[in-house]
């Protein structure tokens, strides 16, 4: 929104308008007959579900009557309709109990975004040119059907790839069933911040391949290894609620919170003790703590059970992990290690959690297993104030990784003829080194269900815009954040603004046109039918005590936003698989330390999460909690390092890895290790609406393609980089100063 331009452009527009002598355009628009019966000025609150991150918080949507410009049977006009005015947490929902994070609240702007795709689009001009023409839904679906029916022939020309965000509930059922009906189909779920490592580790240690639910509220001592659990990790709202309770919710009791990480995160900022640790050394540190606890007989090694047995030398009391031995490697003083270990052991229940960068090192799995073992040793698994696992719902891990697929396509090993994209932006979310972009170019037909033209859907041949989450039926089964079993459901909170259709409905429609096994495997006509079916099943299984029949069960679920078990399910550790744990404790880094002198630490932006929210003006203009940066990105550098490099606040800095380089303004802050530079994920979209396109740089693009040993996940914290000053940059800060003591006073 360039002011000056406004002045120029619209002065002209104004002139013409005035000369034509026409009045306010609104007056010329016809008014359609209202479709719903609402009282003006009176708000109604409708339950919904937040779909912006995997936490799956419950929403209440404030709906009021308003007048919107809509298109009805090809004509533009004004329609009095219920409009979502505000998103708040659903107080009844066990995950977020009426609270909501900034991202969740900004979800409102997704629905009303000026650059939302308003109708199905077909590519018009060369791929990636961003030229599309509007088509009718019938034509669009016909096109998709014809493409897919080719794949159903006896000898298909190629496979069907479906790349989606991690799905749950009936959406997942529908997508997998749809994929299953094709000969060689490759459904895969992609998210940059995936929890694959945690799932693997928890599966191995405790037999639950799920992210943990941490009962912080009851805990007296919390040790977090790099997990930004108050900001973006896992189920932040649930964890924030619990954190508040841990701090001040229990009269006379205040738990301690220690954070180990190389760069102070928003979560680390709230820690009682923030202790920098060498990147990738978290596991070693955890075992160091375990060593002290065992050595000082504060707990017996056997207490750790299976989780401990996965760690080499556990039964011998981890001789290699004596504090003084690991002090250098971890960068943490041995006495600190000892002290923390003693405090943790002395303050039952104590709990350790790990996430984010700590699990995104080459040794991420080892780190996670080590922390699991520490938890087990502290006896905090499946106990109040410890980690529990909500009973798993339908979660089928997709076997194939996007990296593998891309390389197969590029090498010609796999022939993918049709790609369906839903809620995933692989072009933005994968390192350039994966070659996803090239792979997409090789795919003859790409259909996207996206609501926006983003870096990936810009390459699509067909765009079938999905409803916004407020306009569509939703169901979800959160896997973390509450010890209760939670199955959320929500009818549409408002009527669609544009000519869009819900993705599952489109798939079901296509399935029925294709017929055959596919149609049989998807018996429902619409998504809500599918959801209702799942709730009928749920009623048979669990619901009988809460409702007299399936219909009532279904009704109440819709009214309160889902169904949740009354009792808290304490999932006990089910032995766990004897997956061979990785032997190597030490992390590997891509790049020769002598040349690439700095660890490159991307981190989830509190406002943009993984970048999927960079198109929301509220998120762009809200100051980042720590840097206070608005409308841009930055590279966080330790003051001493900056001094050595001759870099000042706001200078443009070039960051180069072995796989690419980028430029961003420097932010000089004390909370980061001198040998680490950090950069938020989220900005740097080539193509993502007027608010995010071409803004800042994307750290993911320069990451090395190494993956976490023993899993398919990307080791996104394992890249080394070199820095150089590249001139003056632009850094928009909301905060005037770093510290309360005014710098001017130094002169005294």
């Amino acid at each position: 929104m360039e002011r000056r331009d406004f002045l120029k452009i619209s002065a002209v527009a104004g002139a013409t308008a005035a000369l034509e002598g026409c009045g306010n355009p609104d007056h010329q628009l016809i008014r359609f007959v209202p479709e719903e019966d609402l009282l003006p000025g009176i708000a109604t609150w409708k339950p919904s579900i937040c779909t912006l991150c995997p936490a799956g918080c419950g929403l209440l949507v404030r709906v009021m009557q308003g007048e919107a410009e809509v298109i009805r049977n090809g004509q533009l006009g004004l329609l009095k309709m219920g409009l979502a005015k505000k998103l708040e947490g659903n107080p009844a929902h066990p995950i977020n109990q009426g609270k909501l994070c900034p991202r969740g609240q900004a979800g409102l702007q997704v629905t009303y975004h000026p650059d939302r795709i308003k109708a199905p689009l077909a590519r018009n001009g060369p791929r990636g040119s961003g030229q599309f023409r509007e088509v009718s839904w019938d034509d669009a679906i016909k096109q998709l059907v014809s493409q897919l029916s080719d794949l159903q022939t006896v000898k298909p020309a190629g496979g069907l790839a479906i790349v989606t965000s991690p799905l749950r509930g009936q959406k997942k059922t529908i997508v997998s069933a749809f994929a299953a009906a094709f000969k060689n189909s490759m459904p895969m779920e992609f998210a940059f911040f995936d929890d694959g490592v945690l799932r693997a580790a928890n599966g191995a240690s405790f037999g639950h391949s799920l992210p943990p639910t941490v009962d912080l509220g009851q805990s007296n001592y919390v040790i977090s290894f790099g997990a930004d659990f108050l900001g973006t990790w896992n189920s932040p709202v649930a964890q924030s609620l619990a954190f508040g309770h841990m701090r001040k919710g229990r009269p006379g009791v205040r738990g301690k919170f220690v954070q180990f990480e190389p760069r102070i995160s928003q979560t680390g900022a709230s820690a009682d003790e923030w202790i920098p640790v060498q990147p990738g050394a978290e596991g070693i540190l955890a075992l160091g703590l375990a060593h002290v606890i065992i050595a000082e007989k504060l707990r017996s090694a056997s207490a750790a059970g299976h989780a401990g047995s996965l760690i080499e030398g556990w039964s011998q009391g981890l001789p290699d992990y004596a504090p003084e031995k690991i002090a250098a490697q971890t960068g943490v003083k041995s006495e600190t290690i000892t002290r923390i270990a003693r405090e943790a052991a002395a303050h039952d229940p104590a709990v350790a959690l790990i996430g984010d960068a700590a699990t995104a090192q080459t040794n991420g799995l080892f780190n996670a297993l080590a922390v699991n073992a520490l938890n087990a040793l502290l006896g905090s698994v499946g106990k109040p104030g410890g980690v529990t696992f909500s009973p798993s719902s339908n979660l089928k891990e997709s076997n194939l990784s996007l990296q593998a697929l891309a390389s197969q396509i590029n090498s010609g090993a796999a022939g993918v003829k049709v790609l369906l994209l839903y809620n995933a932006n692989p072009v933005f979310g994968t390192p350039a080194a994966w070659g996803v972009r090239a792979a997409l170019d090789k795919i003859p037909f790409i259909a996207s269900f996206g609501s926006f033209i983003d870096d990936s859907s810009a390459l699509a041949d067909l765009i079938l815009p999905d409803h916004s989450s407020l306009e569509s039926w939703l169901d979800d089964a959160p896997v973390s954040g509450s010890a209760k079993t939670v199955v959320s459901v929500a009818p549409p909170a408002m009527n669609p603004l544009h000519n869009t259709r819900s993705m599952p409905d489109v798939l079901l429609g296509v399935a029925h046109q294709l017929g055959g096994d596919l149609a049989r495997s998807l018996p429902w006509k619409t998504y809500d039918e599918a959801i209702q079916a799942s709730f009928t099943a749920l009623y048979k299984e669990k619901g009988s005590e809460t409702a007299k029949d399936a219909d009532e069960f279904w009704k109440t679920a819709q009214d309160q936003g889902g169904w949740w078990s009354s009792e808290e399910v304490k999932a006990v550790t089910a032995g766990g698989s004897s997956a061979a744990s990785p032997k190597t404790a030490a992390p590997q880094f891509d790049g020769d330390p002598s040349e690439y002198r700095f660890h490159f630490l991307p981190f989830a932006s509190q406002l943009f999460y993984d970048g999927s929210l960079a198109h929301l003006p509220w998120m762009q203009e809200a100051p980042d909690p720590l840097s206070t940066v608005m409308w841009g990105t930055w590279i966080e550098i330790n003051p001493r390092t900056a001094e050595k490099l001759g870099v000042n606040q706001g200078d443009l800095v070039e960051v180069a890895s072995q796989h690419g380089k980028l430029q961003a303004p420097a932010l000089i802050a004390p909370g980061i290790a001198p040998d680490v530079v950090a950069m938020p994920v989220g900005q740097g979209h080539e193509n993502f609406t007027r608010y995010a396109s071409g803004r800042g740089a994307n750290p993911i693009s320069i990451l090395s393609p190494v993956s976490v040993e023993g899993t398919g996940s990307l080791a996104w914290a394992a890249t080394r980089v070199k820095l150089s000053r590249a001139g003056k940059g632009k850094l928009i800060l909301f905060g005037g100063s770093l510290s309360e003591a005014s710098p001017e006073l130094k002169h005294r």
Partner: protein
Amino acid sequence: MLRSAFRVSHYSRVAIAIGVVVLGLAILERVLPAQGTGSSPSAQSPDVFTTAHRTVSDSVREFFGLREKPVQPIAYTHKVHLGNGMQCTDCHVGVDQGPDARIPSVNFCMTCHQVIATDKPEIKKLAAYRARGEDIPWQRVYGFEPSAHVKFNHAPHIRAGVDCSVCHGDMRQQTVAERKVDHTMGFCLNCHRQKNVSVDCVTCHF
């Protein structure tokens, strides 16, 4: 030279000059979209919403409180409807529950006018709207300028037993609704003072 400055012919020239300037300003005023004056050029572009007026003239008009008389698409007569024993709240639903009174939609009218007085020209208009699937583009009669920042709420006034006619005139006497009462701040304050209810600014302005 100084003397020459006062020759009459000079005056005429001055007069002409002034005339030209005034004219120029007038033209500018028409075409220039005002911004600071409460109106932004962007108001011209249909794809942004702003508090701005569309032209300087708009803002000037509002500044002096000039409002043109609303012209209703259908000559709805309150007189007849109320005469037939209908109540205000029959159509203006919600007035006793919330801030605004509902203006009935074409469907609502047609519930009766399916059968009643279907031959009358105005009712034919009504039916035509319904047939086209359009709602009736009623024009506002009352209502505060946005720049007044008044947040009026009907419900408490109804509950306090203030009769509709106090603020809207006696609709029994009106056919098409007219602005019988001028909703100035003074008008509101008088009543608030008499009934000694709050005259705190934030009671209405927020």
